[in-house]
């Protein structure tokens, strides 16, 4: 067994699989997950059907897109609850159970311990994602969502779960008590999902009045999967998000981001401008679908798709969390920040 395969498949992974799947909690969690996801799918579809019937405005294309949008966001929210619970006790639980020293005296390296714990936890998350595919396939009955959109959405969702897992393990390594680590991991999940999303509302980018294109929201908002998932589902940037326009207006004169915007399933954005020209309804610059989401117009990730930028930023968070965990976990560190002088001998022993 070479070093790579040893790192990927170490005894901790096998042990975690074995112990995890022998308890009643795992089948219960899987069942609950499917019931909740299926339940929300049924509820959304029912609500959409009722709305369409009453207003005569619904179309099967919209059904599919809106159902998909709700489902994928709900799935991310569910995983934000599940993943910290799976990972926050991984290392602190070993400490509380007083089994960590027994691992430290084996040749298994701290990195492999962390990786083993992560792999076991995230495999369970992957299992949840896989078993949710049949529910998501309902979307294809109505159309409006292409296969690549589904793939990109699952990639962002999986990456988010991975990031939450890395954050959970990092807190589990940092804190000795599982309760504290769990609270911190949920705090991290909230910051990642909701905090970064809300950042766009609280600290939007100032739009240049002379610009002809809408600026992209702040890059940090892409850490949250919410905006990337919405752009994948609609094939367009999210209107009015993360950008502040001059004179308190909602958009730039003649730009694609003015007024009350709505994006159609074909990717064309319609806006009712309330800016300088105010009042008139016009079709503004259309953001053409590019397959799997819209392109970021300005900033660090200019030219990238939202989901690509989100994945890259989350990968960076994962690397930082992994490095932090590997640094903090070992009982004895290879380097010292400062060396304390030993007390002088009192007597010979």
């Amino acid at each position, binding site marked *: 067994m070479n070093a790579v395969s040893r790192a990927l498949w170490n*005894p901790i992974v096998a042990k975690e699989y074995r112990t995890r799947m022998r308890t009643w909690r795992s089948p219960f969690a899987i069942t609950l997950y499917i019931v909740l996801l299926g339940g929300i799918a049924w509820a959304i579809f029912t609500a959409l059907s009722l709305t369409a019937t009453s207003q005569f405005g619904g179309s099967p294309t919209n059904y599919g897109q809106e159902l998909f949008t709700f489902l994928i966001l709900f799935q991310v929210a569910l995983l934000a609850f599940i993943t910290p619970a799976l990972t926050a006790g991984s290392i602190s639980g070993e400490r509380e159970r007083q089994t960590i*020293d*027994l691992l430290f005296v*084996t*040749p298994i390296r701290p990195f492999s311990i962390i990786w083993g714990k992560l792999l076991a936890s995230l495999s369970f998350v992957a299992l949840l994602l896989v078993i949710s595919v049949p529910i998501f396939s309902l979307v294809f009955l109505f159309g409006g969502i292409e296969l690549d959109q589904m793939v990109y959405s699952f990639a962002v969702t999986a990456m988010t779960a991975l990031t939450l897992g890395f954050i959970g393990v990092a807190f589990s390594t940092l804190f000795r008590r599982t309760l504290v680590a769990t609270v911190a991991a949920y705090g991290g999940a909230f910051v990642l999902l909701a905090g970064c999303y809300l950042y766009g509302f609280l600290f939007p980018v100032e739009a240049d009045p002379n610009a002809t294109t809408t600026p992209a929201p702040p890059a940090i908002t892409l850490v949250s999967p919410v905006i990337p998932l919405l752009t994948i589902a609609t094939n367009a940037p999210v209107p009015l998000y993360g950008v502040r326009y001059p004179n308190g207006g909602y958009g730039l004169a003649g730009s694609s981001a003015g007024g009350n915007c709505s994006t159609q399933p074909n990717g064309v954005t319609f806006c009712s401008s309330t800016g300088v020209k105010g009042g008139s309804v016009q079709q503004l610059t259309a953001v053409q679908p590019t397959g799997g989401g819209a392109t970021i117009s300005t900033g660090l990730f200019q030219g990238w798709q939202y989901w690509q930028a989100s994945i890259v930023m989350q990968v960076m968070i994962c690397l930082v969390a992994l490095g932090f965990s590997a640094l903090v976990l070992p009982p*004895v560190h290879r380097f010292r920040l400062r060396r304390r002088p030993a007390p002088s001998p009192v*007597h010979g022993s």
Partner: protein
Amino acid sequence: MIAVEQLTKTYGSRAALDHVSFEVPEREIFGFVGPNGAGKTTTLRILAALLEPSDGRAYIDGADVTKDREKVHAKIGYMPDFFGVYDQLTVGEYLDFYAACYRQPKRRRQKIVDDLLALVGMTERKHQLVDTLSRGLKQRVCLARSLVHDPAVLLLDEPASGLDPRARVEMREILKELQGMGKTIIISSHILPELTELCTMIGIIDHGRMRATGSVRDVIARLSSGRRLRITVIDERDAALEILTPLASVRHAEAVNGAIEAEYDGDERTASDILVALTGAGIRVSSFAPVDGGLEDAFMRATSEDVG
């Protein structure tokens, strides 16, 4: 096999270990004795490369515990004083997991597990969930776990704590068998009479300082043998006490269970002088013998005064 040189560990201004030194030759069983908080666990954790010393050096079969941790881990089997086990794993799976952690080949692991279970007398428990075992049986499983990679050195921190007398005897027999297999063992314990029977060497530690170290016989002789006398006299106990108490060499004398016990400073010649003083005063002495306090007495003396 094991060398500890001026080992020091400080936590803030408090010294948990204060220049502790001792050596354990190959195939010896070294009993590490001391009251709670004396520094036994700290020393064992440093030897297991789980804790960085503030100063000093320690070597396991030539490997520096601060620099060659992987070599040290390959040479030692460590059993902590408090340890947990995993839920949902059988005894066999538990040992197999650690054998895998020690990179034992899969085809050999089953035999290793079976052999170790036979060694600790738990073959019939192989398929029982390890979490459901009694404390004594968990101790045995943990001992078996520390042997999965056939280490030359065993560091056992209070392996008999919490065990009933029968389990302690069985643990002692297992450790003797391990000594017969050529293992070098450091064992910390509070159960002193058993250490006397089991150990070939002993170290007494208190407040982070090594008070005495050497062979069990030497340490007991140095700290207790010949320093206390039990004297039985006929009808004249009070008179005998009046003679003993003023003697310069006698620290303390008192009546104990119909006899007199006298603590004194000096050697066998001093003891004979005390006898001469009694008989010279007309006291009829029916018995006069040094009291061998054993390890317990040595321990009490070592931990109640500065021995140096």
